[in-house]
């Protein structure tokens, strides 16, 4: 069952189009990623879905409600962690959770959330004294304290160290396993690849693809490389031997180090050919295709290139 359905959503700021007809749907119980470079329109799209902004055109339904018209009922059912928001410096962790719990008709027990998010020993600490990771965990706990059916998390690991990011990912998976649908806005490829069940790739205000992370990667026909070291065998005509295989576009050799470049599933053909000619190789490595490759293939330019 789709909990979010967005179709043809448009939005402009001062004549500059930010969303050019965004459409996607989110299924119940999944972690749905919205991936794109900074300025792609991810946050605007999600804020229209949350009812924080009004789209110029198109439609959005969240849990069967119209964010523009049924905002009040919708806000009871969703939890939101916004990018760039802070709490007052002097509010204590428990006070913030207790306060936000009081906003909802059927809140969760915030003491439980304190435990779950590893904030129990920070119960009486002031917000201003928390580390980046602790603040982020508090924001997630605040997004969940109302007992939402859908949680929106925007750039939740920005500014965290690698260890804190990994820890955050683990708890996000637990949130989904607890039955909450998660919409995750991110510009980190690794985060999306690790966490998301499905991803919408957003570029210049449009959704250019929606698929599982591995589906997106498999769909890419980008050139990649495999490397190996020749151990034994008669290998004088290696270039001719491998160069004609389907998918292979180049073979280069330095001593017994070989690099084969190709597209698609050329690696299988290469290993089969090596076996057929009884060439023994070691240190075989196949360059793994990533979401970065998928992004380049979908948009025609590298991810970091925002121009």
């Amino acid at each position, binding site marked *: 069952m789709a909990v979010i359905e967005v179709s043809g959503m448009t939005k402009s700021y001062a004549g500059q189009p930010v969303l050019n007809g965004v459409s996607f749907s989110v299924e119940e119980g999944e972690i749905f990623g919205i991936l794109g470079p900074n300025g792609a329109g991810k946050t605007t799209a999600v804020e229209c879905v*949350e009812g*924080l902004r009004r789209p110029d055109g198109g439609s959005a339904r969240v849990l069967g409600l119209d964010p523009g018209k049924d905002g*009040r009922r919708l*806000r*009871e059912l*969703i939890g*939101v962690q*916004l990018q*760039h*928001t*802070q*709490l*007052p410096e*002097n*509010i204590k962790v428990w*006070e913030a959770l*207790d*306060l*936000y719990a*009081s*906003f*909802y*008709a059927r809140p969760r027990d915030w003491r439980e959330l304190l435990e779950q998010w590893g904030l129990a020993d920070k119960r009486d600490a002031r917000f201003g004294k928390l580390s980046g990771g602790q603040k982020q965990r508090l924001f997630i706990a605040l997004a969940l304290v*109302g007992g939402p059916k859908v949680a929106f998390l925007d750039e939740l690991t920005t500014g965290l160290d690698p260890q804190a990011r990994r820890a955050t990912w683990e708890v996000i998976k637990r949130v989904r396993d607890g039955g909450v649908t998660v919409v995750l806005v991110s510009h980190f490829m690794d985060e999306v690849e690790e966490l998301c069940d499905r991803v919408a790739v957003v570029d210049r205000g449009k959704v250019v693809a929606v698929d599982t992370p591995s589906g997106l990667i498999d769909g890419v026909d980008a050139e990649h490389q495999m490397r190996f070291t020749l151990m034994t065998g008669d290998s004088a005509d290696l270039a001719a031997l491998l160069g004609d295989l389907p998918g292979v576009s180049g073979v280069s050799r330095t001593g017994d180090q070989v690099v084969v470049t190709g597209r698609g599933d050329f690696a299988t053909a290469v290993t089969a050919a090596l076996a057929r000619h009884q060439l023994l190789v070691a240190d075989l490595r196949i360059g793994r295709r990533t979401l970065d490759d998928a992004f380049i293939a979908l948009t025609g330019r590298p991810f970091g290139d925002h121009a």
Partner: protein
Amino acid sequence: MNALAKLTTVELKLLAREPGAMFTILIPLFILVVFGSSITPGDTVLLPMSLAIAVGLVGLYQLPTTLATYRERGVLRRLSTTPVRPTSLLTVQLALQLVLALTACGLLVAVAGTVLRAHVPSSALALTVAFLLGTAAMFAVGLLIAALAPNGRAANGIGVLLYFPMAYLAGLIQPPHQMPPVLRNVGEYTPLGAFRRVLAEVWAGGFPSPVMMAVLAAYALLISLAAARFFRWE
């Protein structure tokens, strides 16, 4: 406890933890006590002056800094994703700042009336009307600062920058009779000057004059409308 009560409790705690709030209470009290040593019993000048200073500090400094900081930190925006509307927070803040102004003034009246034996007007109604109108006008200015300032520090700066000329024009820095007549006359019609003037009228044993009440009410209304017009939630 419902959301509004909880919000009020938390905001009250935050206000109590805010050193600025302490200063808005202590600065006028300090002025009162320092100059209070040289007044004669029954004095009718020092207490209304320190009341105007106290309300001015809350309205021009504490209120706009708090609100602009909340907007800057995204607190208002975060609230708008919950079932509670961010206007509730503004309402609670206004009420608490009013309580802060009342506390500061109550303390001043108590100290001046007992220890310093300054004159305290007997008409509670006249005093209440003067206090409410003056506070409304000063809070309106504070709201306009909060609406226009891009962040908390800017609001703080604008508040401080506005405070001194307004206090001067209101005759709170130099006694009015020593001021150039033009400035004194103009000053009486500034928000803080008009407030000081109605307080002086009350301390002289009368009721605030209709003209001055109208001036303060007009400031309160027009400046709040401007603030509402320019206020941004983010």
